[in-house]
């Protein structure tokens, strides 16, 4: 157990260093500032006092950036090791493929979470600077967003072991963004289709990762209040179960991979 913890810590540290050394986060922050600063200066028709649109745009950027980082972090876990053949010395150590997978996954999630925490610090600071208060829904929203990032890393990790990098990033982004925006409407879309297509859409609805469950942006922006505790736990349980399934599939794919 102690050995596992030490190995995992080493892998987490590696993921951290890799993510923060790449400067992706700083580039994203600069991009966010370039978008948000002009928006914050706008006074439509000379009317002051509107702030919700700023919160909404800022949160949308935080979600987009976090997805970008999570997918990248998941994708970079194994393929570079295969290409540079550094997977051999890694596996030559007394570490199993499953442990390597879990350790690397935890590292990527921790690194992505650190980036997300940084984005949320900036978001809360911007709200406070504009004279707003700390929303009561914020802790729940952050926890659910963290769960979403963990899910996105798992999706990307599984994809990276099955398809090429570009295909994985495109497919993962399409699935997660598609479900984020249209996931809850899939049953409605299915109603108007022919039976075969309807069945396909309903299957997607049943098994695709429901990214929209973790989206509390509207609650934050419009002050709806926190989600009921039971529902909150169910959503977290959904994330845990889904991630466990994805990691099991990834472990299976890694185990069958010819190195």
């Amino acid at each position, binding site marked *: 157990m102690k050995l596992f913890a030490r190995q995992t810590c080493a892998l987490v540290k590696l993921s951290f260093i890799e993510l923060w050394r790449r400067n992706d986060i700083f580039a994203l922050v600069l991009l966010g500032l370039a978008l948000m600063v002009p928006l914050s200066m706008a006074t439509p*028709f000379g*009317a002051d006092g509107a702030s919700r649109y700023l919160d909404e745009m800022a949160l949308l950027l935080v979600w987009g950036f976090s997805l970008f980082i999570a997918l990248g972090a998941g994708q970079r876990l194994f393929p570079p090791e295969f290409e540079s053949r550094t997977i051999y010395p890694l596996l030559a150590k007394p570490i199993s493929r499953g442990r390597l997978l879990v350790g690397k996954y935890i590292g990527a999630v921790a690194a992505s979470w650190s980036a997300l925490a940084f984005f949320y610090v900036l978001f809360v600071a911007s709200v406070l600077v504009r004279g707003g208060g700390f929303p009561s829904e914020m802790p729940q929203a952050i926890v659910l967003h963290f769960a979403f990032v963990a899910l996105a890393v798992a999706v990307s990790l599984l994809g990276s072991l099955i398809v090429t990098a570009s295909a994985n990033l495109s497919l993962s982004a399409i699935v997660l963004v598609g479900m984020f925006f249209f996931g809850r409407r899939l049953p409605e879309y299915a109603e108007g289709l022919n039976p075969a297509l309807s069945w396909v859409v309903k299957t997607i609805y049943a098994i695709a990762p429901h990214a929209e469950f973790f989206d509390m942006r509207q609650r934050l922006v419009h002050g709806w209040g926190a989600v009921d505790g039971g529902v909150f736990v169910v959503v977290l349980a959904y994330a845990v179960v889904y991630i466990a399934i994805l990691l099991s599939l990834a472990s299976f794919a890694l185990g069958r991979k010819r190195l």
Partner: protein
Amino acid sequence: MNAVGRVLVTLCGIALVWCLVGFCSRDVERMPQVVKGEGALAVAFGDARETISQACVHKADSYFHGGIDMECDHLGGHHHDDNCKDGFHEHDHDEDHDHDGAEHDFFDPWRWINSHVRAPDVHRHLGGGEAVEMMPWFWASVKADPHNIEAWTTTWYIANNMIKDKGLALRVVAEGLEKNPDDPELLICRGRTIYDNGRGEFAAAREAFSAAVASAGRMLQRVGSSDEHILQIRDFAQAYLDEMAKRGARQ
């Protein structure tokens, strides 16, 4: 590749660029100029601006409902004087506010989660000063499509009747008239703000309503006298003029 080959490739490249420039410049002159409006936005998006403009109005509608996407037309096709109350419009909402689709026979856990995470417990409308939160979306809407009269008049309505800022309302109408000169609906909006239910300036309001009647008349001549919408606008402006005439007679 030897020196001769490089020279040949360079010459071919120059010839190709020459042909392309000549061909394109000739065709640019022949091409019909179909892009409406002015500015980079018009050139980049063309007719898609109308859709973007409507999407912004839709977003403003969801803001009015406290962030709920109502998926029904509350702001579009508005009739300010039919159902307006303190809020935007007087309308009935279902008790449970089920906007997640049709009823299902079986228990759908995903739908259950969505209905709890993505729907507020209490339905609230923006009112009073809070209505200013909608202004950025209307601003974006009319920037995307400056000829979206409905967006202009709804923006005016929010400024005039909800925020109750006459200066803001007049600024909105002035900007709208700049983009849509002599539009009768915007002229009526200006007249109503100035008239202020009989508390404002009569002469300036009469001028605005008369201009609206005249503009609607010209439109009727152009598009045909049976256009219901324009007829209604003209009658509406005329009704204000009649009311002002009655008040003037009484005074």
